[in-house]
C-alpha cells in the first residue's frame, strides 16, 4: 500500500493552509510529520481523513488517483485517523467502543456480547495491550484509552494509520508503550503517519521525517540520517525579520511579582521566577507545557497545591480573579471568544466590564464618564468598529482582540498577563498590538507573556523562561537567545 500526495493546496478564506505540499506514505514505514503551529499538519491530516477536500493537487493510492470526498470514502480506502482528542464513548465498555456502530450480531439479531468481547480481546492482544474488554472506558487511564482508540482503528482492515500528537497527554511509560505498538504495527505492514511535537520520539521511530513550515513542504529526510539541529532549522527556517525586535534600555525597576516553587499536581511543578516593572518576561513552551495553567493560577482563576506568590513583596493568595485585580493584575486570556469577550454584547459593555465600579457612583453607571473611557481606548488602540454600541461579535478577530486588551488596559494594571495576545490575528493588527504592549511597558507596566509564536516571544521579551512538561527547562536572561535554542529546550 502506498499513498502519495502531490501538489496539494488548500485555502481557508484566502489564507493558504497548505501550499503545494507533498507527502509519501508506504506500507511498513513510519513517516513522521513535524512543523510548528500553523505549519499545516492538521490540515493535511484532515485531507487524508476526508474532512477537507483540497483545492488542487492529487492523492494517489497504489498509483490510482483517488478523491476522498468525505470520511467514509477515506475509511473505504483503509485509512484510519486517531485524533488528538479521543473520540470514545466514556460510559460504555472497551469492546463496545472498539466495535462502535458495527457491533457483532448473533443469529438472533441481538448483540453477541460474548463474541464481541472475544474479538476485542484478540485485537487488544495484537497490540500487546493488557486491557479487559469489559472495562468501562472512563475507568481507564488516558494511555489505555489511547490504546483502545488504536484497537478501534484496527477492528477494521486498515492499511494506513494516522496519529495526531498521540503522546501529548501521556506519561512517559504510556508514551513508550505506544511507540512500541506503533513500531509493531509498522512491522505488520501498515503505513504510519506520525505527527508529533516531541522530537526525541520522532527520532526514536521515524523511517522518514517530513517537515512542513507555514503550509509549505520543506523537505523529507531519512530517519537515521536526520539530526536534531537540521530538523529544527528546517522547522523554523524563516528569518526573524518580519517582527520588529524591541530593545529596551532599562534600568532595573522594582520587583513586582515573585513566584516561588509554585506547584499544582499534574499541571506544573516547582515554578520560580521574578517579574520587574518595565519588562516583559516570556513563557515559552509547547502546548501542554503548563504555561496557561501557571498564568491562571497566578491570576486566582485556578487553585495550586504549594508554593508562594509575592506581589510587591507581600505574600498573596488569590481565591478569585477579583482578588488579583485588586492587586493591580490583569489578564488577557488565551481564547477571546470563550474567555475574553461576552459575545452578543456591545464593544462598550465589553470594554467596561472590568471597571464597572470605577465608572459608577452609588452603583449607578455614569454614562458619560464610561463612554469617555471607551472612546479613549477606541482611539488609542484604533479599534475599527461602526460604533461602540455595535455587537462585539461583528468585529474582526484583530479588533476583538484589541477590545479584550482595551478592557485590561482600562483597569490600569501594574502587572499584565498576556496569554496568546495575537493568536488568530492578522499581521497588521499583530504589529499594532505589539506596539501597544511596548508602549505600556515603557510606562513601567510589567508583562508576563505567553505565546506559541516563538518569534513573537523573542521579539517582545526581555527575558525568557522555557517550560517543558510543567517544569522550568531553562531561563534566558537576555533577548539575544536564538529561536533554535528555545525550541531545543522546549521540545527536548
Amino acid at each position, binding site marked *: 500500500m502506498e499513498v502519495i500526495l502531490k501538489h496539494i493546496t488548500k485555502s481557508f478564506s484566502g489564507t493558504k493552509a497548505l501550499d503545494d505540499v507533498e507527502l509519501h506514505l508506504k506500507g511498513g514505514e513510519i513517516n513522521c510529520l513535524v512543523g510548528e503551529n500553523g505549519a499545516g499538519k492538521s490540515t493535511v491530516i484532515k485531507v487524508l481523513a476526508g474532512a477537507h477536500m483540497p483545492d488542487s493537487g492529487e492523492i494517489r493510492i497504489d498509483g490510482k488517483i483517488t478523491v476522498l470526498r468525505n470520511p467514509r470514502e477515506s475509511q473505504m480506502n483503509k485509512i484510519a485517523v486517531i485524533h488528538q482528542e479521543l473520540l470514545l464513548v466514556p460510559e460504555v465498555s472497551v469492546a463496545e467502543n472498539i466495535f462502535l456502530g458495527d457491533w457483532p450480531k448473533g443469529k438472533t439479531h441481538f448483540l453477541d456480547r460474548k463474541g464481541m468481547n472475544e474479538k476485542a480481546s484478540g485485537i487488544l492482544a495484537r497490540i500487546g495491550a493488557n486491557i479487559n474488554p469489559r472495562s468501562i472506558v472512563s475507568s481507564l487511564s488516558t494511555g489505555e484509552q489511547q490504546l483502545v482508540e488504536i484497537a478501534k482503528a484496527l477492528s477494521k482492515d486498515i492499511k494506513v494509520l494516522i496519529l495526531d500528537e498521540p503522546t501529548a497527554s501521556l506519561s512517559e511509560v504510556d508514551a513508550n508503550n505506544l511507540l512500541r505498538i506503533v513500531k509493531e504495527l509498522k512491522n505488520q505492514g501498515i503505513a504510519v503517519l506520525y505527527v508529533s511535537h516531541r522530537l526525541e520520539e520522532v527520532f526514536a521511530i521515524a523511517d522518514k521525517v517530513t517537515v512542513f513550515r507555514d503550509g509549505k513542504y520543506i523537505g523529507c529526510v531519512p530517519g537515521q540520517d536526520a539530526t536534531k539541529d537540521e530538523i529544527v532549522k528546517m522547522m523554523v527556517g524563516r528569518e526573524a525579520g518580519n517582527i520588529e525586535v524591541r530593545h529596551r534600555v532599562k534600568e532595573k525597576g522594582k520587583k513586582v511579582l515573585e513566584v516561588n516553587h509554585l506547584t499544582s499536581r499534574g499541571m506544573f511543578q516547582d515554578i520560580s521566577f521574578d517579574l520587574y516593572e518595565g519588562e516583559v518576561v516570556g513563557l515559552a513552551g509547547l502546548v501542554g507545557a503548563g504555561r496557561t495553567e501557571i498564568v491562571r493560577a497566578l491570576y486566582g482563576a485556578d487553585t495550586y497545591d504549594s508554593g508562594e506568590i509575592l506581589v510587591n513583596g507581600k505574600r498573596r493568595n488569590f481565591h478569585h*480573579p*477579583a482578588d488579583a485585580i485588586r492587586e493591580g493584575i490583569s489578564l488577557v486570556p488565551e481564547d477571546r471568544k470563550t474567555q475574553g469577550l*461576552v*459575545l*452578543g454584547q456591545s464593544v462598550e*459593555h465589553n470594554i467596561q*466590564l472590568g471597571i464597572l*465600579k470605577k465608572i459608577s457612583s452609588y452603583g449607578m*453607571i455614569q454614562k458619560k464618564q464610561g463612554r469617555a473611557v471607551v472612546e479613549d481606548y477606541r482611539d488609542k488602540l484604533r479599534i475599527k468598529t461602526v460604533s461602540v454600541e455595535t455587537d462585539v461579535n461583528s468585529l474582526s478577530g484583530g479588533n476583538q482582540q484589541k477590545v479584550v486588551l482595551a*478592557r485590561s488596559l482600562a483597569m490600569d494594571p501594574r502587572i499584565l498577563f498576556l496569554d496568546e495576545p495575537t493568536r488568530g490575528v492578522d499581521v497588521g493588527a499583530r504589529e499594532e498590538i505589539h506596539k501597544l504592549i511596548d508602549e505600556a511597558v515603557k510606562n513601567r507596566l510589567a508583562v508576563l507573556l505567553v505565546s506559541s509564536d516563538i518569534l513573537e516571544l523573542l521579539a517582545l521579551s526581555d527575558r525568557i523562561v522555557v517550560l517543558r512538561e510543567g517544569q522550568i527547562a531553562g531561563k534566558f536572561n537576555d533577548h539575544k537567545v536564538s529561536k533554535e535554542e528555545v525550541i531545543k529546550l522546549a521540545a527536548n
Partner: protein
Amino acid sequence: MQQIKTKSGQLGQILDKMGLFLVLLVFIIVMSVLTPSFLTWNNLRNLLIQSTILCTLSLGVTFVIITGGIDLSVGSVEAVASAIGMALIVKTGFPPFVGVLVMLAVGIVFGIINGSLVTQFRIPPMIVTLATMSIARGIVLVFTNSANIGPVPRSFTVLTSSYVIGIPLIVWVVVIFCIIAWICLSKTAFGRSVYAVGGSELAAKLAGIRTKRIIIMAYMISGLCAAIAGLLLTIRLESAGPNAGDGVEMNAIAAVVVGGTSLSGGRGTVLGTVLGVILISLVSNAVNLLGVPPAWDKIVKGVVIIIAALLDANRNRIGKRSR
C-alpha cells in the same frame, strides 16, 4: 457608516424591537371587533389588576433567566410567604407590618437557598428550584392546614380600594416596581454584571466579576419578588390559601420568554417582560370574554410560548451566523 448595514438586518432589528408591540396591537384590535365588552374601562382596569401579580413575579424571574438560570419555585414561594406571614398576623396576632417583613424575609431566604445550591454545588437550576418548589408548597400545606387563613388586616386593603386617576393603587405600586427593576438592570453596575454573567460566566469571572455572588443576588431578587407577589395576592384574595400561586411559575416564565429574554442567558429587558405579561394576561382575558372553555386558555398560551421560543432560536442563529 451606519447605512452599510443591510436593509433586511435593519428590518429584522425593528421587528425584533417592535414585534411584541405589533402582536399586542393586532390582538387588541381583533378583540375589540369580536366583543364589545373588551374595550371598556371596566375590563381594561380588571386586566391591569389581574396582571399585577404575574408582573411582579415575572420581574424577578427576568433577573434569573438573564443569568442563564431558571426559577420554578416562584409560585410556591409566593404561597409560602403569604401563608407564613398571614399565620403570624391572624393566628399569633403579630402586628401586620411584622407579618409583611417576615413574608419578604421568607422570599429572600428561599432565593438565597436557590442561588447557593446553584452556585456552590453546581446543581442545575431546574433541579434546585424544582426541589424548593416542592418544599415550599409542603410548608404552605403545613402552615395553612389546607385551609384559608384570613381575613387580612384592614390596612392591607387600601391597595385595592383606593384609586389614583381611576386606577387602583396596586397597579401604581407595580408600575413603580417595574421602574425600579428597569433602573436596576440597565443603569447599574450590578445590572451590567447580571448580563455579563449570563452572556459568558467565564469571561465575566476573568474580568473580575464575582459571578457566584451575582447569581445568588439574582435568585434573591426573584425570591423577594415572589414574596411581594404573595403579599399582593393575599390582599386581592383577602386571605392566604393552600393553593395560592399554584402553577403560576409557568405563566411567569412564559411572560419573560415571550418578552424576548433569552433562556440561554445574557439578553432580556424589563420592558419586554412587561409586554409579555400583558400578552399572557390578554390571552386569559380573551378566552374568558369570548366564552371559550377555560381549557383553551392553556392551549393558546402554549402556542404563544412556542412562537416566542421559535423567534428566540431564530435570533440566536442569526447572531451566530453574523460572525
